């Protein structure tokens, strides 16, 4: 066997092993749902506005929303309830938030789900969630899982 043939054989073997590795990694993948939520908007800032901006001509579709309402190392002075308000959702829903009191404790935690999605009112327009002004020593965290989608 000539040296040339030996080298070609080695190259062939190496390439074959590469292909073999590629194929073992290629266990059949289950594709993601095309209607999976693709992003999560988040804020823990007093009086912030969380803005969900769809692609041009598409709509915001919301799948999940969660809130954690907590006090830091110092107690919160009990105060009137506040609201997380919204725009561009038909009906303009709001979510009631207590001030909380006990230092280091989260007085309110909730999660809302829309398995088939909650569609924005107007396509091509952002949906916003407006955080309340926090009490001293209070932090409210909001997460909203959503995607942009064409409307049928």
């Amino acid at each position, binding site marked *: 066997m000539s040296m040339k043939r030996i080298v070609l054989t080695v190259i062939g073997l190496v390439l074959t092993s590469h292909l073999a590795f590629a194929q073992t990694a290629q266990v059949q993948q289950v594709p993601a749902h095309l209607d999976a939520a693709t992003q999560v908007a988040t804020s823990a800032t007093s009086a912030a506005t969380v803005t969900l901006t769809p692609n041009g001509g598409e709509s915001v579709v919301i799948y999940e929303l969660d809130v954690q309402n907590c006090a830091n190392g110092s107690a919160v*002075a*009990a105060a009137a309830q506040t609201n997380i308000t919204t725009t561009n959702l038909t*009906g303009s829903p709001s979510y009631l938030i207590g001030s909380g009191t006990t230092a280091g404790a989260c007085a309110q935690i909730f999660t*809302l789900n*829309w398995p088939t999605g909650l569609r924005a009112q107007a396509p091509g327009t952002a949906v916003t969630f407006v955080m309340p002004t926090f009490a001293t020593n209070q932090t409210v965290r909001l997460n909203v899982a959503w995607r942009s989608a064409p409307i049928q």
Partner: protein
Amino acid sequence: MKWRALNGLLVLALLGLLPTPVAAQSTPTPIQQSPARLDSAAQIATTATSAATLTLTPNGGESVYVYELDVQNCSNATGGTVGAVLSMTTTNISGSPAWTLGTGSTTAGALGGPGLCQQDISIKYPTGLRAQTPGTPVTFVLPTFAANQTIRVNVSWRSAPAQ
């Protein structure tokens, strides 16, 4: 010359630097956007008013489908005055479901005490909850709040033909 080229190829192959079909096998990013589902919730009825009635009115001949219901039951800085339990009732849902709500408390640090929310209810109906009678509104009737108490109710729904 040919011999040197072959040697070069061998070195590259051993280093794993030769292109293989691996890149071509990676999952392509879907370009076509999946449209919003036709059965997605389209609106939310909301109120935080004592003794209010939320009315979900379907399109003519259609039915109300409820997908999600959430309630936040909170006290202000004073705390809700302790009293008998309250109920939020419904009409035009088979079985007439109701939800029981506490009044709160004026005791600092107690459940539903000053500044605290004692109930955060979240209910979902993944395939929808259909109204009893097509063409008829569904209502959610809030209780009369205790003093210093606020209850927020949101109901996600849509109007759809009943099959």
